[in-house]
């Protein structure tokens, strides 16, 4: 009798979740399926639509430009994520130590998050302008030579990374500060009574308790920076040359400038596999940490 009830219950559950599954299929699976299908064609946004098999993928994998773009994306994501997480976490630790009200400080650090990516890009473009920008003016006051910033291959990528760091560090800061403030106080007090100093308490007590949250923040920032578009598009449009071209701007150019929708879709499929791999490996790291605890 209980098993019959359970079977009945299972069937009911299926009917209840069916509408959600259908909605999910239409909104998520259809675009994914459509994109995948188009990646096997030479569609040009017009009447040309022939099945080309794996040709788009083969072309891409043999294309030096594609690998440059992939490398740029990974370099940007690694640098931006690394600096944002390190800086945001450091700021959170320092603000957490302050014995005064930190509302204003927190608001200031979070302020850049309120600004849209394109506005951030435009503001930075003005500030980093080699002739009119305030940054070169300030560097001049310090006796340092002017920099081309976005205009030179060597400095373009660090400049884009710097702008993303300015924009998104507040996100890491606020999440990690919430994590620090939410830590149970008793183990920290116990460590203090046992004789631990502030560094030991941070390294051996607080950090292990925050590990899960930290990995989550790294996953979020890694995926977000891998998908970067607005900052690059608004500042360098991928230039000079291919110095800052990332996957999203490459796909945009391929699809809208060259009308190679099939190739653009193939790029997105390969890129999605990269993001999936990054997310899975970070998640595995997180699970291993949790199992260790």
């Amino acid at each position: 009798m209980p098993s019959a009830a359970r079977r009945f219950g299972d069937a009911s559950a299926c009917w209840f979740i069916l509408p959600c599954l259908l909605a999910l299929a239409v909104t998520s699976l259809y675009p994914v399926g459509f994109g995948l299908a188009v990646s096997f064609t030479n569609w040009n946004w017009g009447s040309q639509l022939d099945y080309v098999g794996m040709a788009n993928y083969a072309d891409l994998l043999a294309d030096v430009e594609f690998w440059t773009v992939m490398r740029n994306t990974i370099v940007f994501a690694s640098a931006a994520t690394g600096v944002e997480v390190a800086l945001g976490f450091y700021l959170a630790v320092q603000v957490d130590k302050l014995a005064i009200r930190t509302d204003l400080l927190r608001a200031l650090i979070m302020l850049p998050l309120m600004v849209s990516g394109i506005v951030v890009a435009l503001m930075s473009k003005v500030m980093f302008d080699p002739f009119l920008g305030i940054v070169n003016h300030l560097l001049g006051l310090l006796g340092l030579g002017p920099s081309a910033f976005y205009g030179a291959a060597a400095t373009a990528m660090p400049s884009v990374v710097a702008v993303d760091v300015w924009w998104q560090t507040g996100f890491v800061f606020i999440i990690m500060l919430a994590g620090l403030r939410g830590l149970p106080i008793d183990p920290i007090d116990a460590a203090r009574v046992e004789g631990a100093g502030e560094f030991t308490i941070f390294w051996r007590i607080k950090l292990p308790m925050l590990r899960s949250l930290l990995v989550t923040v790294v996953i979020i920032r890694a995926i977000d920076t891998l998908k970067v578009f607005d900052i690059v598009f608004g500042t360098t449009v991928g230039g000079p040359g291919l110095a800052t071209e990332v996957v999203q701007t490459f796909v945009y150019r391929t699809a809208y400038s060259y009308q190679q929708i099939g190739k653009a879709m193939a790029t997105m499929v390969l890129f999605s596999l990269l993001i999936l791999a990054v997310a899975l490996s970070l998640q595995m790291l997180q699970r291993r940490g949790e199992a260790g605890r």
Partner: protein
Amino acid sequence: MSEIRFCDVGKRFGDVEVIRGLDLGIEEGEFMVLVGPSGCAKSTTLRMMAGLESISSGDLFIGGRRANDLMPAERNFSMVFQSYALFPNMSVRENLSFGLKLRRTDAATVAGEVARVTEMLGLGNLLDRRPRQLSGGQAQRVALGRAMIRKPDAFLFDEPLSNLDAELRVQMRGEISEMQRKLAATTVYVTHDQVEAMTMGDRIAVMDKGRIKQVGVPTELYERPANTFVAGFIGSPRMNLMPAADLLGDAGPTVDPACRRAGTLGMRPEHVLVGHEAGTVGIGQARVIRMENLGHEMHLHLRNARGRAITARVGSETCGGIAPGVTVPLAFRPEHLHAFDRTTGERLP
């Protein structure tokens, strides 16, 4: 081992003064219990001893040395928390050896001490487990072990048994008392449970609203409470406290004039006698409202002619014929009366 002494200590959190004029001495090797209701600042007092809270005014001396500004690590105390406060990312073994390793104790000594404490507390098969894999009792034992392992000058306990079930609490109560007796260590134990206070402490300090109401050995607190607060707080069921006229009723003229003049009289439930005997004084009839049968004894909740609630504790075998709704005569022996001042609530001699 350390003597701990508070001299006119005050503690403020912003504009709120939580402790005022605290004077308390804890002798070397003594088991002192701080007891009081929630919010009476007993845990704050303990945390000031540990160095986890600053002292706003007055002085704290540890082993004769002014300790107001000493860091927790410099006091060489161990503390056991209500939440156990084990380090969640470390195994039991790592939790136990944490303090020793911080002091750069050599590996052989650490292993030896871990083995000693493990054997003493029966933690042998738990050494590689993480705190989340332990039951409440096991976690509390590990917390005890962590406190014991480095032979501190004093043990501080902050309501360590509050999260345990009743049976385990009784068992752990015995183990802590036994440990304290063996180590002869200065121990300060915070609890809101007066049974723990009475059964464990050499002396008890009863606190209320940031002030110490009485310090004394358990029998002194029970038999000669210094004020109505202590009289009501120590003892279960609590002492019957009420205006003299309401308790004595028509028996007023037969008792000591000092008692009659007292604002408040108190009588322990076990001293409320059901029925008259030689040498007792009758205090009129009372109606039985409710009866609580504890097996070996019965708690009678009564209401006297003046509408006052009175609790009597009697042996179960003496309750024949008593039932809710029945009216019974009450009496007492004059030497069992406690008299308190009407306005200050302080004990009258």
